């Protein structure tokens, strides 16, 4: 008899098992989000927005009101909701393509306006749903369908430093962190603090989660874990870039 | 559908043609007549000739723009060129007689063409700031679209807050209307 691991209470049983590929990190990030929602007791207040790409597979993931859109427009949809009804806890959930490429203007300007919403962005270093093309977050030398000989930083730049950018352009009151599915306790902690920041009405909150895509990475379990645990941190630093009350001198822009 | 009186006012930015058109339009509206005023806009808004298109009628007004005007008022050399295409056999064409070097450009096909010394009168007799009000007097005299009384009321409505602070301005503006009307009456 196998014991099922406990699901977060706000997960929707009817839509499980979920639709992500085996080994995909989305399920882990969504688990951390679910746990944070449970612990904060906000299931009735959350509106969850998901984007195009693999993140859209979460459109019926939670017993939480959910809207699916595309191209990083999840941020303006959630912004529009939050502006119209400030009691709602708005979560925009998207991938690196939506947040850092096609919808980057929405991220930058939601940050600039200090929208009281929370963005969770899953970084798996490429476009998953479309078949593994190079993304803003693709690592130097990493092979993808549109960088078959490896990403050449001379021609295509270095991986986008999302949380660093967000931290640099937010003022005091924002919460910005990067976690990883390798450290779930820490990731859930960041996610929870981001939501608490919105609950407190302090400012914009943002967590990037380093995640896995064995399907497009074409990696086995061991290689997958090594990539996210050892390779990605070479370009993506884990930690809190900004937290209310903890701003380092000169960092606050306040 | 009754024929609307079609008016074109053209000048340089700062000559106040748009505010004149707007005040006349509002005055006509206050009289219960139909008025339609549309400013030119677009790239010319910055540094170009400012053209105001105004129509006043007792019935519903058709398209906002028109081909030939009943009266054209051109207040600068560039305006003379800009407004030529709106002049037809039924058009009364008024220009400021102080504009130099446009004699050859003045329309030959108009019903009547005459100059009025509005710029000079504003400068020497009244005050440069009421130049556009002189023009307003000229327009209402030439077209009869609104009465002098109604024009005064419209100015009072628009500039009343300034008159409160400086009551002399009221007299200056009303004199400007009367002078504008005289200039046209003399020319006609």
């Amino acid at each position, binding site marked *: 008899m196998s014991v099922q691991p406990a699901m977060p209470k706000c997960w929707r049983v009817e839509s499980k098992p979920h639709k992500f590929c085996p080994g995909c990190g989305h399920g882990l990030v969504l688990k951390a989000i679910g746990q944070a929602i449970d612990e904060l007791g906000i299931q009735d207040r959350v509106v969850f927005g998901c984007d195009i790409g693999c993140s859209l597979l979460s459109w019926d993931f939670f017993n939480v009101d959910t809207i699916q859109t595309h191209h990083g427009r999840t941020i303006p949809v959630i912004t529009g909701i939050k502006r*119209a009804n400030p009691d709602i806890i708005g979560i925009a959930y998207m991938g690196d393509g939506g947040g850092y490429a096609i919808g980057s203007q929405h991220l930058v300007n939601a940050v600039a306006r200090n929208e009281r919403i929370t963005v969770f962005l899953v970084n798996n270093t490429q476009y998953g749903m479309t078949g593994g093309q190079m993304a803003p977050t693709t690592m130097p030398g990493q092979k993808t369908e549109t960088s078959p000989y490896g990403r050449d930083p001379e021609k295509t730049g270095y991986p986008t430093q999302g949380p660093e950018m967000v931290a640099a352009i937010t003022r005091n009151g924002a919460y910005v962190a990067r976690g990883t599915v390798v450290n779930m306790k820490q990731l859930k902690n960041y996610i929870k603090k981001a939501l608490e920041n919105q609950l407190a009405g302090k400012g914009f909150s943002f967590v990037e989660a380093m995640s896995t895509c064995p399907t497009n990475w074409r990696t086995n379990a061991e290689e997958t874990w090594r990539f996210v645990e050892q390779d990605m941190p070479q370009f993506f630093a884990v930690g809190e870039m900004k937290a209310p009350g903890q701003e380092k001198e000169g960092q606050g822009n306040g | 559908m009754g024929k609307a009186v079609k008016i074109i006012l053209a000048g340089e930015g700062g000559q106040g043609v748009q505010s004149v058109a707007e005040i006349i339009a509002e005055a006509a509206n206050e009289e219960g007549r139909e008025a339609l*005023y549309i400013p030119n806009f677009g790239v010319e808004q910055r540094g170009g000739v400012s053209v105001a298109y105004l129509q006043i009628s007792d019935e519903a007004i058709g398209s906002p723009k028109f081909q030939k005007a009943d009266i054209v008022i051109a207040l600068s050399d560039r305006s003379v060129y800009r407004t030529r295409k709106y002049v037809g056999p039924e058009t009364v064409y008024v220009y400021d007689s102080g504009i130099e070097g446009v004699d050859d450009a003045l329309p030959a096909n108009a019903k009547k063409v005459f100059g009025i010394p509005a710029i000079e009168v504003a400068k020497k007799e009244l005050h440069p700031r009421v130049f556009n009000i002189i023009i307003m007097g000229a327009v209402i005299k030439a077209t009869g679209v609104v009465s002098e009384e109604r024009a005064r009321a419209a100015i009072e409505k628009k500039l009343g807050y300034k008159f409160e602070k400086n009551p002399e301005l009221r007299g200056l503006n009303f004199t400007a209307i009367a002078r504008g009307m005289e200039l046209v009456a003399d020319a006609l």
Partner: protein
Amino acid sequence: MPDKPIQAEKRAFLTGNEVVAWAALAAKADIMYGYPITPQNEIMHYWTRLAPKYEKEFLQTEDELSAGFTTIGGVMAGKKSFTATAGPGNTLMQEPMSMAEAMRLPTVVVVMQRGGPSTATVIYSQQEVTLTTLGGNGEGMRIVYSTASHQELFDYTIKAFNSAWKYRFPAFVLGDGYQAKMRESLVMYDPEERGIELITPEPYVGKPGVPGVDREPAHYRNTYNVEEELYDVLQEQFTAYNNIIDEVAEFEAFDTEDAGLVVVSHGVVSRAAKAAVSELREAGYKVGYFRPITLRPLPAKEFKALAGKTPRILVVESAQGQLDRLLKEAAYGSKAEMQSLFKPGVGITAEEVVARAKGILG
């Protein structure tokens, strides 16, 4: 509670952009999301001045994509939300409005057409007809009112909110740069005082209770796994759309019964057409007038009937045949000979219509 924005019927003399802001207030709009583009800017200018007095909200977004998607967010939160745009902004607006179409969301967009393609002019055109009626990667399940006067801008802006919420299709008020910038008179009124019931919006998300416990969660998507799933959803939407056509489609016509030539136009051009037809009639020409007020859905039945009995139709528009294409589709197989007067991006006067009509009639 703040006072009603319009207490009693009153004659006003305003620009069209100002009229739209007042009409949105009269329709009890809650929030505007917007991005600057000429010639619609003053809608935002007036709204932002009026909004705080009536406890309304405004958000200036980073672009028209965001203006459209935040409008969608506002609608989903249960507020009467709207935006306004023009030209290249309308191009961007098609992406969010495709989502509104896919999810049948009651959005309201006011379009003040400018010259096209691309940046073109900030002045005027009727070149956003195709975009507004059929734009996006969809099937044109929208309601598009093409207004001709400030009175109609006021009336149909109010109506657009009601139609959007009643039928749950995105609604557009299609004006143009002339209407946006010109001043003329209209009568403003409180719609409820005139017996027009204003539909109260309902939230799509954030309703009371814990989702999955007290109620089903609201799960809104516009993505489908298989072709057939999408196909089935679309069939339902087409049926719903077709069912509202008779109720929604509007037109205006006169002097068509005995006419040898009927002038067809829409929006501000219909003012010139109307004046031209009246003038021609006075001169003894048997000319008629037809104007679709809704461009989506088009009053196709009425136009087809007209095209079946009128020998000649003259389509007049400030575009290179954007209305003409819609009309030809509706009139397919009819005997009427279709003539045209197209002036893309340029205003049309009654004199030009008269001259063209006389040219056709000989």
